[in-house]
């Protein structure tokens, strides 16, 4: 079977008609991973026993003619910053080497309740800090479209897995673009819901006011199906929103004629690769052909987003990562005193980028700098938020490039942290203001590299976002 063409709907259809068993599908995917992973390095851990037990449970239901849940038999991959009971979870870090969590993240539990088959854990930048996957302590992931290039980050393993037929869908996390940017680089759909839409219980925290869990999939319909089972209030996450979840699939195929789309001029300035610009403009034209009203809008504080983000994200990270001290989990550096144990364990086991961000965040929060950096950044966050509120008074959604360039070469930016940070220039603001965003493919560069188109909608209006993205896909937008 051609695994890279499978969708959630197709899997469910095959499994319920018993044309193929969930067990066979899981085995085929595991075999394909075994074959491809040496090159791609997309998976860090496989959990075949767990996968096959779940697949067998689905097959028993199918055999008994019972109604199957929405993700029945769908092979999925989970980013290694999301905890899985008994299955090693490292966050791409040596400080959590060998850590087997005692519980499942709510997102994972909900996927499994919906019949999904968890194959294993995907590689990522250490603690989700990075835009290329080169910050993983377990080696970089390679882009399936060109293995000399990065898959994007930080959820690079999940994006590569879905792009290469290693999983039908996958979970990632997005703090500054870590779902949408790798989705764009790998040519798949990547969805970040509104802040609080999906429970983060069991997501290893990076920056708590920015972190999201969301899906990667090959079609917008699949992304909607996965989001549907994950979304909604979870008492175990006090930041999860108590807002009703609509039926995303019910409105997915509604026409988009008459919807108002805003093109923020600040997202098309200097630094945007001409090929990316051309494809995204073609994508915007496709929305016009679908009957959308397109107009230019302004998000005037866009230029300040990266600076704002790198204070807020690192400040929160420096606090969240204080828990890794060699006491409760992970290995410990031999020392005579607790102080030396903390300092050495952390110094030896965190990677360079994580240390850099802890240092930056600690500095920004330290006495004498708190007002100048941390509070200043939070005030700028308010200005960015107001930009979006104003724009959404005029339009239903915003359309932008996902990233300024297609996938870059492994090693190209790894010595220049600032250049790497700028890879997230079009994605970070979505996290800062909490709106939902999706990246969908909009064709390829001349060199055959995927290009991503990004849409934002109003808070909690994922239904509109998915409807627009689906209309774009149905109109051939993925292959412009």
């Amino acid at each position, binding site marked *: 079977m051609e695994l890279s063409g499978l969708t959630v709907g197709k899997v469910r259809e095959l499994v319920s008609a018993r044309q193929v068993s969930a067990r066979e599908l899981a085995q085929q995917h595991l075999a394909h991973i075994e074959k491809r992973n040496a090159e791609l390095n997309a998976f860090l851990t496989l959990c075949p026993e767990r996968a096959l037990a779940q697949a067998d449970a689905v097959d028993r239901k199918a055999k008994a003619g019972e109604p199957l849940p929405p993700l029945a038999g769908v092979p999925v991959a989970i980013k290694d910053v999301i905890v899985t009971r008994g299955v090693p979870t490292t966050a791409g870090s040596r400080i959590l080497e060998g*850590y087997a969590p005692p519980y499942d993240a709510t997102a994972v539990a909900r996927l499994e309740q919906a019949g999904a088959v968890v194959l294993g854990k995907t590689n990522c930048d250490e603690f989700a800090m990075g835009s290329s996957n080169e910050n993983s302590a377990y080696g970089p992931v390679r882009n399936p479209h060109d293995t000399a290039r990065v898959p994007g980050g930080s959820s690079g393993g999940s994006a590569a897995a879905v792009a290469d037929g290693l999983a039908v869908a996958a979970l990632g996390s997005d703090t500054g673009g870590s779902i949408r940017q790798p989705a764009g680089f790998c040519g798949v759909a990547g969805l970040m819901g509104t802040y609080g839409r999906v429970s983060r219980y069991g997501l290893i925290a990076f920056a708590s006011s920015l972190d999201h869990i969301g899906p990667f999939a090959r079609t917008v319909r699949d992304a909607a199906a996965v989001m549907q089972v994950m979304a909604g209030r979870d008492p175990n996450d006090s930041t999860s929103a108590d807002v009703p979840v609509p039926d995303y699939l019910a409105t997915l195929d509604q026409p988009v004629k008459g919807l108002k789309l805003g093109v923020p001029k600040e997202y098309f300035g200097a630094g945007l690769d001409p090929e990316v610009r051309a494809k995204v403009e073609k994508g915007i034209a496709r929305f016009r052909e679908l009957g959308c009203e397109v107009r230019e809008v302004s998000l005037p504080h866009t230029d300040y987003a990266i*600076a704002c983000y790198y204070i807020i994200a690192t400040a929160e990270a420096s606090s969240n990562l204080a828990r890794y001290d060699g*006491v409760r989990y992970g290995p410990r550096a031999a020392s005579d*005193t607790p102080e030396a144990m*903390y300092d050495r364990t*952390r110094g030896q086991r965190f990677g360079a980028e994580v240390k*850099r961000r802890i*240092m930056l965040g600690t500095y920004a929060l330290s006495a004498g700098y708190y007002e100048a950096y941390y509070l200043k950044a*939070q005030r700028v966050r308010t200005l960015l938020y107001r930009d979006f509120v104003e724009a959404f008074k005029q339009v239903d959604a915003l359309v932008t490039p996902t990233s300024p360039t297609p996938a870059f070469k492994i090693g190209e930016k790894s010595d220049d942290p600032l250049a790497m940070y700028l890879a997230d220039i079009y994605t970070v603001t979505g996290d800062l*203001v909490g709106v939902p965003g999706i990246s969908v493919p909009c064709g390829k560069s001349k060199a055959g590299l995927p290009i991503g188109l990004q849409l934002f909608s109003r808070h909690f209006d994922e239904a509109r976002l998915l409807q627009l993205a689906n209309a774009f896909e149905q109109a051939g937008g993925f292959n412009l």
Partner: protein
Amino acid sequence: MKLTRKDVEYVAALAHLELEPAELERMAQQLDAILEYIDQLNRLDTTNVEPMAQVLADTRPNPSVREDAVQPSLPREQALAAAPDADGTFFKVPKVIER
């Protein structure tokens, strides 16, 4: 230079990070470049703009007013299972108090 090597050593101590001398040097240079970039925030006048610590706070119950009731939690043996050193009741660490 905004950051001296001494500043970096001070912040590393606050962050409980033991850094090699070469790391300290590189860190000072890289943080300096990043802070210089971040300084552009000062071009914005944010007088009378409230700081935003989180978005959409009104969409979730206020955790500070939830009922203070005991909920089921992780069994002790599971909570201790991943620790590098534990004695069945407590996490163990190197000796804290000198005899």
